[in-house]
């Protein structure tokens, strides 16, 4: 039985280390999904969390100043607006533009703006045509096509 103890111990050590790494990895990189209205009423205890927020880019709101980019995203259902300041080093994705659905990762600031360090514009997928209709849809396209 002694050798099985050895195997058991080794396996337990390996899994223990991996579990610990996984737990710390989760804590380091976890990001909460919030809607804009939830962000506005965020309890102060959660203010320091990394948050991912999604909304549509308000047409005409994109302003660039130096490396920072300011824009406003809105939530359709509740008519909520959120000012976002992006200061990440990567240039914005090609799909980021007026009306695009943008996903911002970052933290809420006390002044009510959202500081994002990464932006992903919902790229209409590898496979499907863009939501929001970048291309003029043919007159008779199937309504459920995308």
């Amino acid at each position, binding site marked *: 039985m002694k050798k099985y103890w050895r195997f058991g111990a080794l396996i337990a050590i390996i899994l223990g280390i*991996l579990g610990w790494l996984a737990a710390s*990895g989760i804590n380091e*990189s976890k990001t909460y*999904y919030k809607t804009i209205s939830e962000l506005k009423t965020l309890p102060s205890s959660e203010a320091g969390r990394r948050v991912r927020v999604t909304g549509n880019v308000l047409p005409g709101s994109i302003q660039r100043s130096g490396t920072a980019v300011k824009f406003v995203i809105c939530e359709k259902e509740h008519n909520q607006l959120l000012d976002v300041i992006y200061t990440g*080093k990567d240039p914005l994705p*090609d799909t980021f533009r007026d009306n695009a659905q943008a996903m911002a990762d970052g933290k809420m600031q006390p002044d009510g703006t959202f500081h994002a360090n990464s932006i992903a514009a919902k790229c209409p997928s590898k496979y*499907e045509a863009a939501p929001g209709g*970048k291309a003029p849809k043919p007159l*008779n396209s199937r309504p459920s096509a995308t």
Partner: protein
Amino acid sequence: MEVLGALAILFAFCLSIYAFLGSIVGAVRQRPYLQKSAQRAVLGVFVLVTTASAILVYFLLTSDFRLAYVVARSNRAMPPLYKLAAWWGGQEGSLLLWSWLLSCYSAVVVLTNRKKHPGMMPWVVAVLQFTQIFFLILNVFVEPPFHVLAVGKGVQAVQDGQGLNPLLQYWMMAIHPPMLYLGYVGFIVPFAFAMGSLITKQPGDAWIHTTRRWSLITWGFQTTGIILGAGWAYAVLGWGGYWGWDPVENASLLPWITATAFLHSVMMQEKKGMMKVWNMVLISTTFFLCIFGTFLTRSGFVSSVHAFAESSIGTWFLGFLSIGIAATVFVILNRMDYLKSETKLESVLSRESSFLFNNLLLLASAFAVLWGTVFPRISEMVTGEKITVGAPFFNKVNVPIGLCLLLLTGVGPLIAWRRSSWESLKRAFRWPALAMAITIVALLAGGMRHFYALMSLGLCAFVATTIVMEFWKGARAIAVRTGRNLALSAVELTHRNTRRYGGYLVHMGIVLMFVGFTGAAFNQDTTQEVKVGDRITIGHYALQVLEITDGSNDNYAWQRATVAATKDGAPIGELLPERRVYVASQQPTSIVAIRRRMNEDLYLNFAGMSETAAGHAIIQVYVNPLVSCIWFGFWVVFFGTLICLVPSKVKLAYARTEMVGVYEKQATSAK
């Protein structure tokens, strides 16, 4: 013709139901003619699905815009390759591709096993056809590809399509989905044989021997598909990397990890009669992860940077997965008695134990990747809050696992079966350990302080030395006896035992890929807004923007920066990063310029014109050391896999207790 296509899938659906039921009834009631007829039906399904696919491809190639599918994925200006690629450019088409590949594989299985495995075959056919029915349901009822647009009564016919997503208009991406699908779909064959052998209570490892080639070929396709995807991301997406732990990527990686574990652990069953239950579990897991991967990418279950097609097919997939998994678990539990291990583990220092830990680590990695991928959904269910984890999580877990696996890659093949002594280990690993130590000391002296990078490169040296030594020892033995030179002897050696030495080559390719991954620890990048004449310096490189030109063709309009580059003052030519706006979709994409060298890539992305400063272009520069090793390593893996497929010249009839790992023994076993 579109009616013919739709009818073909419908008939295929009916026929595969017949094949499924026919096989089962034929097997249970012992009716050979019914079994035969079910096998013929499988061929019929293949012909029908091929017809439907051919019709869809014909519509795509001839740009027939009466079809909704063609309008949404193709346009007139696209070159023929991409018109063909539009077949798998959308939901309906790629599901049809799945069905078609499955019907091809089923037909091949039926044709190559006509006279073999009479008891098992009906069940194999039943498993194949059950899956075929599922995909045909999707093709016929859920996502029909032959949807015709209404024309007339004031509605105009469509003149041109919306085109394939520009990001997909790249050769690697055009062949990436079929490769990956060939891999995904292929694992159903070993799975079907495994189930067939369990249901019919076959003694022995017939299913493993029959499907060894299948598993290898399929694994090769999967590897190719994943690397093509990474290569595409690197060359097209313009963020300077090749892997971002996005759910789509993870979906393709998951079955690959378990398949790799399977390829290793079947050796335990073949040589030692151990791990029988485990192999069943592994092959089933691999197959269901393939289905799960398709489900992830096709249903919008987890949100991703690539917004997927969100549709109702998720429910269908979940249904199929639950039925399939429940049935599999039932069969395995029911036949537990036939899966008893013939031998027991003896020592922690043994080949068996190295396989065990190889499997443990691979499975842990697969579990971590799966966990991270579905974490948003799980956390939402458990805590009500949707939480996502990012690349740091995946790296933190998988980097150490990768390094341990790398170590096992070196240790495993040299350590003795049953038990090994510290003495023999010392002898076998003296040189590799020395190589590792020298590498690490040299790198430390060179100023490298990154712990994981040091370990990784050191282990690469370790494993590479073991492999070279294996070849050298075997080849020298042959050279001494036959008087041939070492190179010829190495070829002869490989030919004698293709499985073993092909496997070593695959390991060597993996080592090279690890060297490439390690390079990522030393990436540099900068983003700058520059006007014509400005300079950018990064690392050894100095870049100067010479001019910015533009133009257009039928498919897209382009803007191109001409950038002259020097390395340590010496000119190394011009790079031409480009930016395109496709006419049909009005979507901009970047065509990056990469100067690829074995030691370092210089990677330029033209991210667009600045909106604040007129005439300023935004240029991103990345210096990525060693990336080319990944692609080179892949070719070595590919070549090694091909060698494994070549039949060995000498049939090694070793008993199930082969001793390897001691110098003298090795020389004899190689003879």
